[in-house]
């Protein structure tokens, strides 16, 4: 098996970055940026999720089969969200 183990240092560094990003999420939310608030919050959350996926869940050293499953999960969630919203935003009157 390919060695997927992270060094302890890698785990500490990723953990530190995740904590900094959490603080950043909170601080960014305290500033009024209008619609950008939500976008920034989601971008930071996505960055944290990707770090966890790549390092803690070892996806960066996993085979193509793992990525197919990750991709399938995200694709179907995307379809669920996209088709649902494409219906609701076009409704009048609103719910």
């Amino acid at each position, binding site marked *: 098996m390919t060695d997927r*183990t992270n060094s*302890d240092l890698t785990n500490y560094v990723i953990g530190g970055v995740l904590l900094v990003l959490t603080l950043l999420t909170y601080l960014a939310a305290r500033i009024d940026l209008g619609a950008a608030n939500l976008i920034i919050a*989601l971008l930071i959350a996505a960055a944290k999720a990707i770090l966890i996926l790549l390092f*803690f869940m070892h996806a960066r050293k996993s085979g193509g089969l793992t990525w197919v*499953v990750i991709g399938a999960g995200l694709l179907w969630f995307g379809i*669920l969200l996209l088709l649902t919203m494409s219906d609701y935003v076009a409704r009048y009157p609103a719910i």
Partner: protein
Amino acid sequence: MSYRVERMPEMQFRDLEQQQETAQFGMWVFLATELLLFGALFTAYTVFRYFYPAVFAEASHGLNAVIGTVNTAILIVSSVFVALAVAAVKSGRRKAFLFDLSAAIFLGTAFMALKGYEYYEHYQNNEFPGLAFDYAVPNAPIRQVYFFLYFAMTGLHAIHLTVGILLLVYVLVRAYRQHYSTAYFAPVENAGLYWHFVDIVWIFLYPLLYLIDIHH
């Protein structure tokens, strides 16, 4: 790490390595279905927030953002410990392995305690649909939808975290009894994958539920 019995692969596998890969693939498929389970709730959230952003922002202020932030940090540190535990079992560092697992279990339990305190606060503040809810406030019906979603999403997450804690306790007991070795650690890795997934779900719940327009 010393271990009690020489672990042999199950008969349908060529070797332990192939067995491990198969078990892990199964966990990834399960996590993809979990994404869709939580995805349905995230979609419901998106629909209602799209139509009622102001009411959601107002209702969000009823949440304790300090506890939410602390709990996010607790889960992240617990994930670090789980990652350290997986690295420790693979390199045969028994003491570190047992310590890291125990630390992750402790932090997971601390998260649940804080979450429970929050639920108690919501109950006291009449923000608990079905049990104690104040219908006299403005926009009460949509406010109620927000709290429905809040309890459904954090509740489903809390159930998952409880399962995660029980899994780690199981792994800890088995680790203490020397069931795992540098050659056999698939259950540790899979419990870890599950734990990290539950952490990722919370990372999205945190800004979406706690941090809506808190600059007011």
